């Protein structure tokens, strides 16, 4: 079907927890594709000792994993080079957000998947809602878990199709208790943490809303006059510092920009020569935040000026920014964070721009 140079199609099976049946559904559709005569291989599959799921791989060709040695331990990774050589029409890749062992050709599995797509191979893959970068703080607020393996939001945008694999929390908890998802010891532990019914419910709601958003954003813009609204071009400016709160600020700005169809910039403003005078760790923190923003496809700048507030607002004005995002000021101004008076100055200078003070999302344990 596909032209030799056409990019492969990406389909993501999105769930809200381990055990909802993402891999099972993906394999079922891979089997269906094979029955229809397509050339299907399994590029990576994580069996988790789940009988029903393993049974679904029967009859599908599996590309053997690549064994990598790292600090004396053997790791098994997807053999992307072998898949590219084998060049199937469709490749099944479990656990999209996986981080490859150091020394691999690419850092992340999603980068391997992009390489397959670029080579014209269709890919099916699985992931959970908690791995979406811009939701990291909300997921922490819900579950108390800081997810480390994340996928930048724009990768989801690359997918031709995102399908929600739904299962009610109660059914999932039943599965856990029956030992379908994890072994019994691990299940007990899981039940105490991530797998509280209310936590699962909240994650499920996030996944449903995200899938609805993915469906929506793949629709051509509605042009019927009845629903057409005046086009407003929002532009968001995120003001980052060396303060760790900057990461949450960047994620929130990214998410807001995506939903409002807005452009997004991130700038760090310092007094002239100040950057060079900062302690090394502060400089590194600023660089880290700027590069984090770039990974999320946000245009970044490092600006210098006599008056920090004025420089920031001037940049905003020349770039027709409509909203400025700042991190909430700490009570005792932490080193590197914006001082309260600076926030006041920005609000005063912002004129007709809106200024949003983004909260730090906190987790409150519920018993």
């Amino acid at each position, binding site marked *: 079907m596909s032209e030799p140079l056409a990019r492969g199609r990406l389909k993501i099976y999105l769930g809200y927890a381990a055990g909802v049946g993402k891999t099972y559904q993906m394999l079922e559709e891979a089997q269906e594709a094979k029955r229809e005569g397509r050339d299907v291989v399994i590029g990576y599959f994580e069996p988790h000792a789940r009988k029903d799921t393993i049974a679904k791989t029967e009859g599908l060709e599996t590309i053997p994993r690549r064994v990598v040695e790292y600090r004396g331990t053997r790791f098994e990774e997807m053999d992307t080079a072998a898949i590219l050589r084998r060049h199937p029409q469709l490749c099944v890749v479990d656990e999209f957000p996986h981080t490859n062992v150091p020394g691999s050709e690419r850092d992340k599995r999603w980068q391997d998947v992009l390489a397959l797509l670029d080579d014209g191979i269709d890919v099916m893959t699985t992931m959970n809602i908690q791995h979406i970068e811009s939701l990291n703080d909300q997921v922490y607020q819900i579950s108390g878990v800081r997810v480390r393996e994340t996928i930048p939001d724009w990768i989801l945008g690359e997918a031709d199709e995102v399908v929600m694999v*739904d299962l009610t929390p109660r059914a999932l908890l039943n599965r856990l208790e029956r030992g379908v998802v994890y072994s019994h010891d691990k299940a007990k532990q899981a039940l105490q943490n991530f797998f509280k019914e209310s936590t699962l*419910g909240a994650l499920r709601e996030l996944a449903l809303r995200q899938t609805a958003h993915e469906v929506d954003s793949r*629709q051509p813009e509605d042009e019927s006059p009845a629903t057409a609204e005046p086009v407003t071009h929002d532009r968001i400016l995120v003001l980052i510092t060396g303060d760790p709160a900057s990461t949450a600020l960047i994620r929130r700005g990214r998410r807001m920009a995506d939903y409002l169809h807005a452009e997004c910039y991130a700038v760090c403003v310092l007094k002239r020569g100040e950057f060079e005078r900062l302690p090394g760790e502060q400089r590194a923190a600023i660089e880290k935040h700027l590069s984090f923003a770039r990974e999320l496809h946000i245009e970044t700048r490092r600006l210098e000026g006599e008056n920090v507030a004025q420089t920031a607002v001037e940049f905003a004005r020349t770039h027709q920014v409509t909203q400025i995002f700042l991190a909430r000021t700490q009570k005792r101004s932490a080193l590197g964070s914006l001082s309260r008076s600076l926030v006041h100055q920005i*609000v005063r200078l912002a004129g007709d721009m809106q200024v949003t*003070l983004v909260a*730090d999302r906190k987790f409150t344990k519920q018993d």
Partner: protein
Amino acid sequence: MGVRTDSRRDPEALLRQAQAEEEYERRGRLKVFLGYTSGVGKSFRMFDEGRRRRERGQDVVVGAVQAKGGEDVQQLLSRLEVIPLLDCRGTGVMDVERILTRHPGVCLVDGLAYDNPPGCANPRRWQDVERLLDRGISVITTINLQYIEEYVDRVEKITGKRTRQQVPVSFLQRADEIVVVDAPPDLALNAGSSGSMTQQQLSDMRELALLLAADVVDRQLSSCLDRRGIAASWGAQERVLVCLTPRANASAMIESGRRNAERFHGELFAVYVTQPETAPEDQQALERNLEIARQAGAKVEILEGVDPAEAILEFAGAHGITQIFIGHSRRSGWWTRLAGTPVDRLLDRAENMDVRVFPQ
């Protein structure tokens, strides 16, 4: 957001809660498979669950089957006990009496939205299901988005069609579990039964079904937390609170809030905290602003409180607000005065909420 136990529990409330729990234990459980069109595989999922439950030892019967079941559905049905529909002047009606006499643990009802012909005990099938639930029989059922009463207008906008058979959304909201059967439109198109809809229409329907399920989940979540006396907000749904004053640039704030809520499929609220000695012209300006908010579809409330910041935060906490919009005046506003103003306190204490400051 703080988690706090409800301090207002009085004995009567506790009694009501105990009665509600007893009632809950007595009734059957309701599980709904929701689809956005036919052909996405709802019936298969339901009957497959029936088969699995039966294998695990539950007493399962089939109370209603739809005529156009595929081969895979037929195969599942052959392994289940089916109570045939009654023929009532050419229309199939669920045999409620026979199901009640048989009294299974679980009854599978394919197609919740059917109307019964005149002369039946209940005009609608969902009312028959209600009866089964009331008699302690659990029900698993399937429904398509277009049959949900409160969504009929929105569905008509997408497809140009209105269905006569309707089930109130409140019935779905009372379900113990709702599962959305999601599939990309091309699969539904392949299944053939959605042939009259375009890809675009199917996508619109799909989005609507996902959002409906998200709303039901949100509701279940908050009622589950309420039952346990926990007030928590997790921000899974964006909720914007616009704080109005007589001098606020209300139209800009409301418009921005409306767009925000719409894009996130969230909710919009507007509040005003009553102030002593409001001048008549301020009162008029305020009324105008509140009207703008109502027109934009915001839920509007007037709050009382000595400390406006406190009143706003309490409201925001109780309603799971994720963004607070406030205005500031450059002339005599709070920013020029230093700490201690209500808005400053708001900024200090609004945990897990963004605060957006609007020029006015």
